């Protein structure tokens, strides 16, 4: 299968394309040598948008994925006790950016998953240090998982459920920066939107309340530090939870009061779809009839 490499959206002349392709191959080759690796990581992660075929080239070229994996595991000793410097964090995050590229690409996502590579990111998500190098490392790692779940592939959801990503996301939702919280909530939302994911989270009271308590504490936190984008994902999570009957019952008592407070939700005035989700949520949870109707089914 011949796959053409088009860079810059094909705006350049054919000569430029050949040159870009040569440059890309050179950079990928540079990854394999320690002396040139760091610069190549930076350059490739900056330019990854310009090369639509970067992911398959990274994956199928000899040793490149193994090299990226080395970059990841050699950071492990810096995690506990926390010693990660900005420099080391930047470098590994550039490697993660390339893996995100592999995770997003249609041709490589399944292979990436089959090789269980996301699991090597879990130790990063499991860190708790609040320093910027760690915050950035967690955010970038969440970005890779986010890229996977964005594809709406139930194999991805199944993989994540069986590998216990949810507790890691929940902790970041409780303690992370606003941006990390948002990405972690997005991941949980995508898991919930999958039927298997919803079923998994609602299968035990313990799991349900672990999620519901974190969502509720995030809503509380928003009273002090409002974030529309975070609120949007929280509402989407609640709405999806309310589609499960037992969860809906529980939500009648544990849905945060702020969500019913127009002063609190006024920030959503420009966001039609989120406002619609919110009213649907309040209606479903607040209306006992919807419950009875469902029970009769």
């Amino acid at each position: 299968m011949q796959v053409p490499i088009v860079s810059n959206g094909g705006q350049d002349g054919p000569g430029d394309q050949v040159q870009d392709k040569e440059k890309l191959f050179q950079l990928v080759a540079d990854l394999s040598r320690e002396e040139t690796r760091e610069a190549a990581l930076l350059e490739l992660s900056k330019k990854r948008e310009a090369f639509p075929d970067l992911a398959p080239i990274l994956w199928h070229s000899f040793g490149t994925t193994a090299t990226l994996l080395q970059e990841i595991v050699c950071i492990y000793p810096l995690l506990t006790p926390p010693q990660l410097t900005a420099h080391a964090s930047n470098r590994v995050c550039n490697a993660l950016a390339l893996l995100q590229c592999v995770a997003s690409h249609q041709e490589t996502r399944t292979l990436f998953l089959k090789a269980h590579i996301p699991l090597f990111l879990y130790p990063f998500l499991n860190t708790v240090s609040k320093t910027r190098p760690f915050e950035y490392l967690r955010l970038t790692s969440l970005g890779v998982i986010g890229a996977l779940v964005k594809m709406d592939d139930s194999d991805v959801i199944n993989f994540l459920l069986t590998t216990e990503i949810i507790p890691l996301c929940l902790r970041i939702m409780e303690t992370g920066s606003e941006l990390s919280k948002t990405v972690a909530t997005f991941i949980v939302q995508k898991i919930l939107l999958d039927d298997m994911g919803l079923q998994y989270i609602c299968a035990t009271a313990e799991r349900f309340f672990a999620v519901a308590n974190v969502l509720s504490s995030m809503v509380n936190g928003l009273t002090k530090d409002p974030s529309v984008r975070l609120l949007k994902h929280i509402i989407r999570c609640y709405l999806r939870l309310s589609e499960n009957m037992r969860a809906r019952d529980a939500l009648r008592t544990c849905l945060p009061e702020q969500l019913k407070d127009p002063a609190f939700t006024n920030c959503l005035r420009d966001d039609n779809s989120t406002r619609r989700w919110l009213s649907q949520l309040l209606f479903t949870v607040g209306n006992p009839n919807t419950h009875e109707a469902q029970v009769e089914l």
Partner: protein
Amino acid sequence: AASSQANVATSGGQGAAPGGSKDDLNLQGVPQSVDQSIQNLNISNYITINPSIAIFQQYPNLVSAVIQAVTQAIKEIVSPVVDRSVTIACITTRELVSKDFALEQDEQQLKAAAHMMVQNLAGSLALVTSKEPLRHTMCNQLRAILNKTNLFDSSLIEQAAQLVANDNLDLGCNIIEKAATEKAVRDIDVTLDLALLHRRKLGTPFHDALVQVQQWLPILPESLRPKAGPHQKRVYEDFMRLPRDRVAHQAATQPTATGATEPNLRGFAEGGNMPMQSNLPASGMHMPVQNQQTEHLRVALDK
């Protein structure tokens, strides 16, 4: 008296290549399972009890109970951590080696690369997953044992528990790492069974990895293609060489000079469902965020 500083040659063990030359823990023969390898190893001989801890000066006969507690904690953690780490390392190694050596007919080449990779991956994963749980379990066991005596107040117990746990954490980690690397080398040959078989039997139909690779060969230049022969193992040999403290050293000696691209969230926007705006804290993240890039990101994400 307290068995003073029964210090093993574990110091620096973290820096050594995993699995390779760390036979100082004196495992007998080749153990068949993790449990057996731990049983064969007399952990208590290696446990360090700092003789200056007040509790043990006062009650030296408590030392054996404390050694028992530390041993118990290590045994509790080792099995689940090693099983998980080795399973993951074997799968990842199988997939990457099968792909990179798809055109290699010599099963020894494949096997050698797999061994180097799997030891590092399993050892690294085992270490990073076990450290905090091990410290936690050790402290808990020690507290429980010392509490039972009704001899000391809780601050004294806490202090002793922390000290003993700290002094023996590296020992525990090294045992777990060693158990993981050894099991990984044994397990990977089973995991690779099919791939090895394909190379032994001439005329075996093309296997998956080969089909995959051949599909993508045309887009790769000669220099990046997987090929046959012994000349291309270096990346895999690096798994054995990679000194663990390279990064620590590098981190300590190099200034924060390198830029990084901003968090990789751009892709999310395409689904329309994703929240990202790029209001990364302006003085925030430690990496320089270029305005142009930020603007691009903002436009792409701000839907």
